[in-house]
């Protein structure tokens, strides 16, 4: 399905149809957070709306995101195929690696930078050390604190960026655990 055919899903995520992968991701996390937690934006109006309508909105957001992820993977495959036919079968390493669709340290860093927020601002407001924030973004798993603390930090950092902290922490910890269980080689 093309971007045009996915217009409805872009609209649910409050994006225009030319949105980048990063915009799709951050909009998804932002809206999930908005409709699954309390805030001054939602609580003054919450009692007018049932729990059911809130859940329905969340369901639509999840659905839109899933559809757009399928679309993105499709786009990647097509562009790879395109390159292949041009370069007589040679596919560069970068393209070979499917673009990471989970929420990693790198995605957090990208979202933060796009928002124009400096790391020191995050440090000041979350009381997480700036060095640690940097290590989280770069996924320097070796230097990170114990899992139990780490999850809390990731979740606070995601909250600071107005993102769904559960989703981000789950994905991040999955990567962390994969590293821990694996050959302990840090991603570059």
């Amino acid at each position, binding site marked *: 399905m093309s971007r045009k055919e996915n217009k409805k899903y872009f609209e649910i995520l*409050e994006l225009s149809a030319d949105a980048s992968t*990063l*915009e799709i991701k*951050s909009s998804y996390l*932002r*809206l999930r957070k*908005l*409709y699954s937690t309390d*805030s*001054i*934006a*939602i*609580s*003054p*109006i919450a009692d*007018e*709306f049932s729990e059911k*309508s809130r859940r329905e*909105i969340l369901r639509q957001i999840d659905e839109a995101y899933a559809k757009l992820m399928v679309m993105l993977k499709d786009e990647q495959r097509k562009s790879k195929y395109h390159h292949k036919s041009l370069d007589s079968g040679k596919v560069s390493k970068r393209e070979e690696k499917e673009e990471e669709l989970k929420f990693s340290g790198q995605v957090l860093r990208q979202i933060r*930078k*796009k*928002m*124009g*927020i400096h790391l020191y*601002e995050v440090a000041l*407001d979350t009381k997480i050390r700036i060095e640690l924030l940097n290590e989280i973004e770069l996924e320097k798993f070796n230097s990170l604190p114990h899992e139990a603390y780490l999850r809390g930090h990731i979740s606070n950092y995601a909250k*600071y960026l*107005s993102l769904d902290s559960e989703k981000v922490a789950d994905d991040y910890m999955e990567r962390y655990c994969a590293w821990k269980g694996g050959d302990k080689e840090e991603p570059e």
Partner: protein
Amino acid sequence: MIDEKEGKIWAIGGGKGGTGKTFITSSIGTYLAKNRRRVVLIDVDIGGANLHSFLGINRPKKSLTNFFDMGTPLKNLAVKTGIGNLSLISGDIHSLSSDSIKFTQKLKLFRHIMKLNRQYVIIDLGGGSHNNTIDTFLIADKMIAVVEPEIIAVENMYHFIKNALFRKLRMSLKEYGFKEIIDHMWERREKYRIKNLRELIDCLKDSFSYIGDILDNEISDFTIYLILNKIRSSQDIFIGSSLKSILLKYLGINAKFVGYIEYDDSIWRSVRERRPFMLNYSLSRSAKEIEAFTENLIQGKELKLMRS
């Protein structure tokens, strides 16, 4: 600056008192005038008119009192502000509340506002959600709501916007002779199990298919431009996009979040110094923020949260 064709009359409201409506009216006006637009500001905060103070001038001798009591044409009430291209029609301080304005006077005021010969007519509304305030808001091409990142202000803003949409739908149904239906249903909302405006609209559409199109058209024409004032951290900015999302997803109302102004002490200082903020502190960050959302308003664009 490239102007949109439409958008000549802008109204600044939002419900809660003290959110910065008058300050923002004066600043947008000053900025547009500095950029060679012919602008008139109208202070319709009946009883609390203070727009002149933000422009650093004395209370004009002529005001809406002359319009209401003596029938002076509105265009003759515009006074110079000391800023080129910018004039002011001052509010009425003699009437105690806007309730005292009669229906026919109100319609006459609206007719006169629409006939003013300026590129931009910017209306500063008072606080609250009084019907006269809302009806004035509704005559604008651009309806601008100012809100603070604070719970009461947010609550009042939702209330204000819901009322505005309700009155707009009621007015258009009246044109088609269906006003009684909307009043009837809303008054008996318990019986019809209607909890909110959204459900009222859905219920009306279900029960009377022939008014569905009228309602859909009115709702899709209805756009609110949101300005978030007095933010205290860059995180607060996201409250603006949250409000926009909730207006759309819960209430079905289109909104554009055009921008924000940070909390800045030099704003009240500027009032005390009796100098228009946009001239006095033109290089400050908050002045730049005002310029940015005014440009967005002119072009009908939203604030871009993510840098490209």
